[in-house]
């Protein structure tokens, strides 16, 4: 009998600094290999690391956002291995004392808020990239050291996840949070967030199952698929009477299977050594309080606030929570409107589509004008269709919605006399429907309203029509 799968994640996040962790080389994305190098990140003899304090600031910000305990003093350590894209022969990381311990990833979904516990997080430098197939015969390996020395924050979760979906949700929520706080730009295709998943399937007999590590997953879809594939493989092996052993595996998305990379037993001994070229990393209470003071509400807190205050559905609250510019816009608009849901619908659908990726704070259609537009719809002076027709112009123009609607003749204004005539006309032509209404088929009422509206060419105001119809129908009785 197989118990639930146990999953832990190690997530590497590239910090949004302009320069590398130990030198002044830029971290910007470039397509020219080895164009962002200096003697320090290329590992020339005699060079020494020089700490980028911005990376420390971002690391502390992340730790506080994730409610981890920041170590007052943390270490820098060298992790040794020989690899073509590791020019110093070691990576500078924080092995003995990490930047922060504990903490949790808030995972917020339609079902509510849960927390995925973290064990630790630490800073380290990235290695370069090896490119295979640079020559027709595929005998050469190209080495690009641009990424060498780029600052990473490695965040390690406790092995408390029990499904691929949960793992993916945790990673996505972490991504959302770190992007919202400006800790990373989170460009997945550029490898700015890479995940390793530790998967073990404890059985009833052996509760401490061997841990299989799946390396270097760079999308949430692959993360989920890889874990599922690995669970399937482990189940198959166990069903066939085989044993799972600790190893490191890769994931092949084309065939949707994991494959062996190396055994855990043959793992290199990293020969960790305290980094003598850097003083210990000291985080002062002042640094902590400064970081705390500048920490905005987290995305899930923003989203929950919108859910509660404006009674919005999860999906909309979530969209708002991840877009600070939109949130800022709505924070200005919503308290002014009588139809918050209508406003959010209009904003998230029509306006967002027309904005076409432009940030909300740069739209000529300001919150006040959107509120005015929504009010026209709400009181029935403008139909939804007409509002939509006006938006392309409003969004560019910054005009007063009511003036524009009036100019275009879209405002729903009819004098009582005309309306009365129209109502009378409809009641006459739709006698059969009126008869049905009097027999108790009240749903016909809506149809009759529609007919009056149609006859008015969209200029009638639905509520006035309803009132007039009501009056006439009752008078007849």
């Amino acid at each position, binding site marked *: 009998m197989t118990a639930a799968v146990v999953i832990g994640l190690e997530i590497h996040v590239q910090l949004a600094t302009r320069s590398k962790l130990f030198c002044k080389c830029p971290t910007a994305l470039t397509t020219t290999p080895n164009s962002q190098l200096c003697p320090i990140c*290329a590992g*020339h*003899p005699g060079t*020494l*690391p*020089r700490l980028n304090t911005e990376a420390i600031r971002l690391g502390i910000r992340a730790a506080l956002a994730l409610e981890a305990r920041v170590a007052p003093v943390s270490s820098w350590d060298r992790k040794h291995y020989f690899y073509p894209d590791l020019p110093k022969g070691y990576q500078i990381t924080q092995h003995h004392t990490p930047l922060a311990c504990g903490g949790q990833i808030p995972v917020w979904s339609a079902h509510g808020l849960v927390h995925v516990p973290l064990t630790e997080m630490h800073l380290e430098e990235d290695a370069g990239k090896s490119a295979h197939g640079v020559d027709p015969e595929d005998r050469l390996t190209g*080495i690009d050291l641009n990424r060498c020395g780029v600052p990473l924050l490695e965040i390690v979760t406790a092995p408390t996840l029990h499904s691929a979906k949960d793992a993916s949700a945790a990673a996505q929520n972490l991504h959302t949070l770190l992007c919202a706080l400006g800790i990373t730009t989170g460009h997945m295709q550029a490898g700015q967030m890479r995940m390793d998943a530790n998967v073990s399937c404890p059985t009833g007999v052996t509760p401490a199952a061997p841990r299989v590590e799946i390396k270097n997953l760079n999308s949430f879809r692959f993360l989920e698929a890889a874990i599922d594939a690995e669970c399937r493989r482990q189940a198959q092996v166990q069903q066939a009477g085989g044993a799972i052993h600790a190893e490191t595996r890769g994931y092949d998305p084309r065939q949707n299977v994991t494959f062996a990379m190396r055994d855990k037993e043959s793992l290199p001994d990293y*020969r960790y*050594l305290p980094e003598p070229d850097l003083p210990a990393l000291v985080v002062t209470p002042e640094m902590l309080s400064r970081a705390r003071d500048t920490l905005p509400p987290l995305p899930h807190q923003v989203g929950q606030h919108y859910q509660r205050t404006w009674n919005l559905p999860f999906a909309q609250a979530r969209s708002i929570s991840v877009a600070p510019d939109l949130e800022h816009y709505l924070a200005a608009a919503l308290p002014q409107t009588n139809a918050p849901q209508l406003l959010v619908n209009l904003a998230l659908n029509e306006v967002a589509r027309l904005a076409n990726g432009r940030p909300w704070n740069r739209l000529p259609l300001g919150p006040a004008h959107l509120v005015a537009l929504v009010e026209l719809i709400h009181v029935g002076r403008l139909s939804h269709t007409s509002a939509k027709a006006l938006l392309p112009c409003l969004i560019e123009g910054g005009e007063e919605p009511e003036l524009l609607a009036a100019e275009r003749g879209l405002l729903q204004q009819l004098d009582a006399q005309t309306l009365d005539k129209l109502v009378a006309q409809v009641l006459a032509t739709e006698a059969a429907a009126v008869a049905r209404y009097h027999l108790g088929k009240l749903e016909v009422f809506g149809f009759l309203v529609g007919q009056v509206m149609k006859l008015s060419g969209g200029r009638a105001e639905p509520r006035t029509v309803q009132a007039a119809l009501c009056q006439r129908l009752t008078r007849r009785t």
Partner: protein
Amino acid sequence: MPSPNLTAPLTTLAQALHTGALTAHELTEATLQQIQATQPYEAYLYVNRAPALAWAQQCDATRARGAMTGCLAGLPIALKDNLVTQEMPTTCGSRLLAGYQAPYDATVVTRLRDAGAVLVGKTALDEFAMGSTSQSCATSAPKNPWDAARVPGGSSGGSAIAVATGAAAAALGSDTGGSVRQPAAFCGVVGLKPTYGRLSRFGLVAFASSFDQVGILSRYVADVEPVLLALAGPDPCDTTTHAAPVFSPSPSFPLHLADCRIGVLPEAWLQGVEPELQQTLERTREELAAHGATCVPVTLPPPREALTAYQALSAVEAMSNLARYDGLRYGCAKALTQPFDARVSQTRAEFGNEAKCRLLWGSFLLTDPAGHELLCRARAVWRQVHDAYRTLLAEVTLVLLPVTPSVAFPRLDTPPDTLANADLFTVGASLAGLPAISVPRGLNAQGLPLAVQLVGRTFDEATLLRVAQHVEQPCHWSERSAAELL
């Protein structure tokens, strides 16, 4: 033009340059000739002839214009070949860095240039500064200028020879466990290892980063000061450097030796020191006392423990620092068409035996459980030695020690014990990160230099140099005839 006295004090040469009695070009030309003449001692791995002469001419021109010149303007200075320079190759005495031309200058090199120094060349050393004979240099076998059958000491052997023979006015070396002090003692010159953090290590090719420190070699104690002043000061490129001022702001000069308490170690602690060096130590103590200093009996953790700890600690850091020499990006590259692993192992097979031993020892200490235990013990001794020196130096101004257990030993068939003990008395100051100086004390009956060591308080090179001046007995190599020498 009378040829300048190349073994005159640096300060005298500077004065002559200043008054115009001597031009930088003349001095550089004469130094280059001396380098040529003393070539049999194999002090230099690279001579920077044309650029040095051009620089000297520029110094003369600047001076002729009456413009400001640096405090070392026109003085010929040599660099140990583990300090990187764009102008000259940097090999660290290793085949691994054959043909390596660094893309940047070490901070100390830049500061020497800023002070106007003429960089005349790169001097020989033990491979990657690991050794105490300079004989593990891949491309040269440096010889002691007082007896060519003997070692010049190491690893800064080339710098010591150059300074002793007048082939440079002063030289930079590097001292990890005694690599400036020991060759200075063997060659009869002054060797200062400043406080750890006093001089920038940026551009000093790392051996054991926790102890590596650029050092200064000169013929007279007074010559150290201008070089130290030119080099000292914090360097943003080396976060282990310190901003402490070189000379304390209080005008405590001239220093009264009567205010000094000198720590003197008991005979038992000095076990294994040759009798003549024990006598040298004793005479030095007497002289200091005669000058009014108070000599206080003190003790420190046994030197052998410190040495064993140092050997372990430096080996693990060497293993780490030398991991980058894989032949992929610079220096020597073997097995170019082979896969990565073969390429790395064949390239690294080019390390000499001394380096290989230390790399293996370092790897063992970090991977094997027994090794790890040894390493833990070494770290405990490190702390112990560090703390013992600090405690002691709260009580005394400085400590008087031998530099080495013996004078310069033969180059061939050296007893393994002699080699093993070469750093016995120098590693203490290295572990404690304290400034230490090797001071010449004349010659023995065989004409070999004698020396003593003084270890001072942290960042107090000033006091160290003042006291050293009282006890120095310079060795005048130039007074010996060339025929007698080689």
